[in-house]
């Protein structure tokens, strides 16, 4: 099939006018509001306001190396992302495998499971602050009924338990997503490989390892990619739940950047940190995508 069959021909210069017109507004908006801010950000990250006026230099970047808060925030982010991702993935995969059969009332079930991830993050924060409230929250209330002493279980106010709490909230919100995506992936797998494996005498574990997993790889990678990106830049829920506290126990990198910009008004430094975060997410997504393309090949 000749290639140009797929498109209207745009070979003359005049023919390019219409698509250019169609594309212009979108490109203009994105350039102004997604690209230009980055450039703006670069500029201010290289500036420093002193008594003498504005000086240029990489001071903001070098400061990163010695800033304890920055590295703590990075560590928190990594812990948060890894823990949440692992739980969400294992739970989601387990549920998907378990429930791969026909489920009666599937629409209702699916709609209900979507609720957590469709909620505004603020509301998620509110919901769980209520649930986790040490005094009247449902969690402690229920635990008390089972005779457990909840005196020290102050959840989001406890330096030891705060990180666990926010991770648990994320797991609550996003496991359904992982579940649904993996379920869709599982159901897209055709029957034949399983029948072949059965005839070949493969055990359940072997079938899982050699048939299910490879065919599920694309879904797995996509869901891992999307979740990782979201987890690395998490802000909303933690802001509501703990505001980075108690102290700075749950301050992730986004929260620290926010604090630098809007509590200390040190925009240059915040911008510098933003770029580190941006670089990090770019590298990771590039790695994932390479994995993904390698599968397709």
């Amino acid at each position, binding site marked *: 099939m000749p290639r140009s069959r797929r498109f*209207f*021909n745009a070979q003359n210069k005049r*023919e*390019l006018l*219409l698509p*250019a017109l*169609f*594309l212009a*507004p979108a490109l203009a*908006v*994105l350039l102004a509001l997604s*690209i230009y801010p*980055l450039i703006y*950000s670069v500029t*201010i990250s290289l500036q420093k306001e002193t008594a003498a006026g504005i000086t240029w230099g990489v001071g903001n970047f070098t400061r990163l190396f010695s800033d304890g808060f920055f590295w703590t925030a990075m560590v928190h982010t990594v812990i948060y992302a890894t823990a949440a991702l692992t739980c969400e993935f294992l739970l989601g995969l387990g*549920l998907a495998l*378990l*429930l*791969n*059969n026909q489920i009666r009332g599937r*629409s209702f*079930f*699916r*709609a*209900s499971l*979507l*609720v*957590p991830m*469709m*909620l*505004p*993050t*603020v*509301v998620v*924060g*509110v*919901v769980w602050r*209520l649930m986790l409230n040490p*005094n*009247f*929250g449902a969690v402690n*209330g229920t635990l*008390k009924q089972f005779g457990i002493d909840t005196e020290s279980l102050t959840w989001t106010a406890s330096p030891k338990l705060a990180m666990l709490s926010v991770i648990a909230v994320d797991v609550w919100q996003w496991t359904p997503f992982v579940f*649904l*995506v993996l379920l*869709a992936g599982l159901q897209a797998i055709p029957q034949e490989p399983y029948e072949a494996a059965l005839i070949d005498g493969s055990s359940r574990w072997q*079938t899982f390892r050699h048939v299910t997993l490879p065919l599920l790889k694309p879904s797995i990678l996509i869901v891992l990619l*999307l979740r990782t990106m979201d987890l690395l*830049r998490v802000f909303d829920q933690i*802001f509501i739940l703990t*505001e980075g506290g108690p102290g700075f126990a749950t301050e992730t990198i*986004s929260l620290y950047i*926010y604090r630098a910009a809007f509590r200390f008004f040190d925009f240059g430094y915040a*911008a510098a940190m*933003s*770029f580190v*975060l*941006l670089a990090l*997410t*770019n590298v990771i997504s590039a790695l994932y995508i390479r994995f993904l393309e390698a599968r397709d090949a």
Partner: protein
Amino acid sequence: MLSTQKTQKRFYVPFVSFVHFVALLSALLFALAPVYWMLTISFKTEGEQFASPPPWFVFTPTLEHYYDAFVTRSFGEYLLTSAIVAVTSTTLALIIGTLAAYALARFELPFKLNRRLSLWILSTRMFPAIVTAVPLFLMMRDVQLLNTRAALIIIYTAFNLPFVVWMMRGFFADLPRDLEEAALVDGDSRLGALVRVVLPLVAPGLAATAVFCLIVSWNEFLFALVLTQTDAAMTLPVGIAGRVTQYEIKWGVMSAAASVAIVPILVFALALQKYLVRGLSMGALKG
């Protein structure tokens, strides 16, 4: 249905069903109970809120918090702002994005621009919000658009644009070209063919995309937080958050506002759950 599961079923029918049932029920409860809890808080008097053990089902409902939130306080305004911003930015994103998507799907551009532009547009969605939030704050401050609905509308449009382009491009590509060619031969202009022939046929996809954008705009928090500090342009999420970070927390008001905030979501979720998995996985998988 997996044939391996089928053979198992023959032997373990009761067991498998029971495990399924328990898992299903647990998942459902786990997902919905906390939301239900919040709903009850919004309807409980302050006394019953702090009761121990906490009453899950039996309590005397009251509407005082809703009244407090929406009539006495400004949550009604926040609601209005959220609605206006969501609808306007979604409309703009749809118009601008659909045109761009059509161009990318139907016209062959030089220098492999079709693929390159699509990927570039998509990549702008991948930025962590805080990375653009800081400079955008400064930019808006420079043009004195802080604390305005306009600023939010502009930014949310840019926010939703990549998604619209990505989704609509897929829908356009799925449509056979015959129909547009027939329209052209029949004498219609490209734009006319787009409006009269193509758009009616992608209407369901357009609707799903629209709803998705509405939900995203409605839920958005970070940009709204950064760009609005006064009641003039505060959206519902920021309003709710404000109540939380103050030292005197009125749980009833907060949960009333939050409960109202989730109503549109629940409605849409039920209506569109078929499309949502596809949308959320960026079209990589069919829901």
